């Protein structure tokens, strides 16, 4: 019975967003334009160096990286905005009184509203895959695993930034700050391999590359690549550490919210 609540919530969110069909289609075009900009820039850079790879691998990389990051909500951190709106304006008190898990409830509703965007992101990933010459089954499996890890890491970032709303009403700016950082360091704007020396080593051990760089690279490189293994190891570590901490952080915030509400 409880699962059906979240399912209905998801479907309601989907119905909400599909009401504005023109808006929906235009948002798809908008995403394509934004992506074309990145691909165009890299095709220009590709002409200046041999390190970037062929046009096809470049297209595949950016299509998949952008698709994955959009799919897991790991760039604009839109879910954190939802939390911020609920805490700041209205809605959270009502949710806390209902016999539901507020995070799950908000997350289901959020994914409902993201239904169309997610389809678009899946299409981007599919398109990216079509540019790859050969993909092995094991690579697809690893891509699936990296996608799950990316979902968790993106959720964690959303929870941290969203929960900040309990302390400051200006958490939306924090979301912007985080969004800029994620754009550059996750690999959606520039492949992590373009960094060198210590900066690259630090990045590989951070939770950022899992959101775009790893899922995209795992389909193009050998899986015994040290770089890939490092990011996988670091991502599992970050998931195990940050997920419980983010939930603890949310609960701490809710206690504070209740104290203000009473």
């Amino acid at each position, binding site marked *: 019975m409880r699962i059906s609540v979240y399912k209905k919530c998801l479907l309601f969110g989907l119905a909400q967003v599909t009401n504005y069909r023109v*808006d929906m*289609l235009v948002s798809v075009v908008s995403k394509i*334009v*934004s992506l074309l*900009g990145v691909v165009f820039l890299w095709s220009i850079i590709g002409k200046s*160096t041999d390190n970037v790879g062929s046009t096809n691998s470049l297209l595949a990389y950016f299509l998949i990286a952008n698709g994955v990051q959009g799919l897991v909500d790991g760039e604009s951190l839109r879910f954190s905005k939802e939390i911020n709106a609920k805490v700041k304006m209205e809605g959270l008190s009502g949710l806390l009184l209902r016999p539901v898990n507020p995070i799950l409830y908000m997350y289901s509703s959020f994914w409902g509203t993201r239904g169309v965007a997610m389809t678009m992101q899946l299409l981007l990933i599919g398109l990216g895959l079509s540019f790859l010459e050969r993909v092995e089954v094991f690579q697809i499996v690893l891509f699936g695993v990296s996608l799950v890890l990316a979902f968790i890491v993106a959720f964690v970032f959303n929870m941290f930034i969203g929960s900040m709303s309990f302390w400051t009403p200006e958490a939306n700016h924090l979301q912007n*700050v985080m969004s800029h950082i994620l754009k550059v*360091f996750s690999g959606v704007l520039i492949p992590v391999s373009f960094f060198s020396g210590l900066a690259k080593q630090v990045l590989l051990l951070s939770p950022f590359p899992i959101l775009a760089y790893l899922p995209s690279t795992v389909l193009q490189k050998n899986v015994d690549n040290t770089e890939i293994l490092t990011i996988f190891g670091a991502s599992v570590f970050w998931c195990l550490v940050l997920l419980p901490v983010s939930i603890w952080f949310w609960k701490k915030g809710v206690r504070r919210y209740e104290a203000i509400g009473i």
Partner: protein
Amino acid sequence: MKQSVFEEVGLRLKIMKVNAAFSFRESIAYSANNWGGLASTVVYMITYLVFLGAIFGRVKTVAGYNYSEILLFTLVSQFNFYLAWIWSIKNIETLGESVKSGFFDLILTKPLPTLWYVTFLKINLTMLLIEMWPATLPLIYLLVKNAEFVISLPGLLWGSVIFICGHIAIHCMQFVFGLGAFWAGEYKAMNSLSYQIAFFGDSVPIEAYPKWFLTLGVSIFPFLLHTALTTSFILGKTTDLRWVLWSVLVMVVFLIIKKKMWEKALRAYSSASS
């Protein structure tokens, strides 16, 4: 009684002054917002400079532009970006929201030149003082440190003219996209699309574009004027003055389109609400 031209101009200047003063008071009242905005823009600038640093760690030039020239390109693009946020983008968003919520009815009842009023509803000068300069400082520092180009006075002058024309033309284009709210009832995706188009050429010099794309970017969607063509003129890479005339022409055409589309949108709004 019909107003004289001077009275009309005076009224418009007064609207701008009052709106700027109100926007200033409003932004000062929410000071935490300013600090948040500053943090966001500073982080953006720093991450973008890291991005440029990583690219130019591997390549010497991008479309014929070296590191210092790309830094100048970024500076021009940042000026355009902040100016757009100071007076244009926010107002287009507000217009869309007011049409969606019905608040636009109230705006129509005011005895003011409505198009002018909605165009300059908010003029956020606080952004200029608190966000633009502090955030741009790291870029200016790097630019001064790495400057390897010479800027001529005519180049700077003509570049500035193209910048102003391009900035106004792209505002008009974004405004026309925003008017979609009068027909569709929703505005966010249209605004997002126009934003993506307006800032499409923000990382790539004009010399890199194929001819057909260049034609598109200086005419129907004039996103190449405000930054790419401006920088090319400032650096002396483009010197043909016909581009200056063309920019003025594009601006005038877009101003006319904006006015005509506004009239159409108002007619659509009346029929929708009656």
